[in-house]
């Protein structure tokens, strides 16, 4: 697999995991007592954080609140570089 394709696949995993969090958050807004949904959310938020760390340690920050790894600080934590989402 070429590096471009590897990045694309990991990005897609981050997008999927983050979307699960968005959807479960919205659902629990109107179903605050649904314990099963809250359990799903507890799993989803950890999985999303794990994939985000994995992506960011390889390809750079996804948000200004991202905490860089030691290696990333050494290399220079660059935000203002392509591709921006609409350039992919």
């Amino acid at each position: 697999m070429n590096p471009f394709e590897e990045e694309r696949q990991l990005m897609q995993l981050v997008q999927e995991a983050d979307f699960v969090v968005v959807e479960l958050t919205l659902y629990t807004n109107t179903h605050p007592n649904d314990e099963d949904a809250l359990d799903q959310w507890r799993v989803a938020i950890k999985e999303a954080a794990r994939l985000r760390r994995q992506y960011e340690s390889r390809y750079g920050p996804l948000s200004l609140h991202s905490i860089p790894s030691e290696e990333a600080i050494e290399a220079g934590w660059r935000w203002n570089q392509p591709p921006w989402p609409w350039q992919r």
Partner: protein
Amino acid sequence: MWVYEKKLLYPVEVTTCNPKLARYLMEQYGGADGELAAALRYMNQRYTVPDKVIGVLNDIATEEFSHLEMLATMIYKLTKDATPQQLEEAGLGPHFANHGHALFYENANGVPFTTTYIQAKGDPIADLYEDIAAEEKARATYQWLIDLSDDPGLNDALKFLRERENVHSLRFRESVQILMDERDRKKIF
């Protein structure tokens, strides 16, 4: 406050340069039932609704901004390599004369966005019913866009957006029910 996320909510794949399709998509970018209207409407209504439904308005407004970015990405990718002549053939000659290759908040006919498309009534039930209608109109628009589209890659993202309108409509209808249940409880005790 908001923090930018350097990624799309859902991937947008565009097969080829297609300014005609881009023009149709502008209906959902800067049109009456589009994503900008939705985002601005909910973001503004959230201040004057009961606490129990603030989260729904806040979070759906935020998601609508991510939909707006997906639409912008579609329009940008479909038009960035188009020549002025191709844009003209697609009916985007007047757009090019005013904006070049830039995006603008306007509908498929080039009518600029206006806040007269949206309302904030200061009455939670009235506002939520408007929001349900807005989601259903957006869902219908996405269906017409899918019917018009000849780009299979793009249809995947359009179907995702159509489905999100269904989910948002459902959350708004549940919000109405939450407020009605609360009102009935107050009458009993």
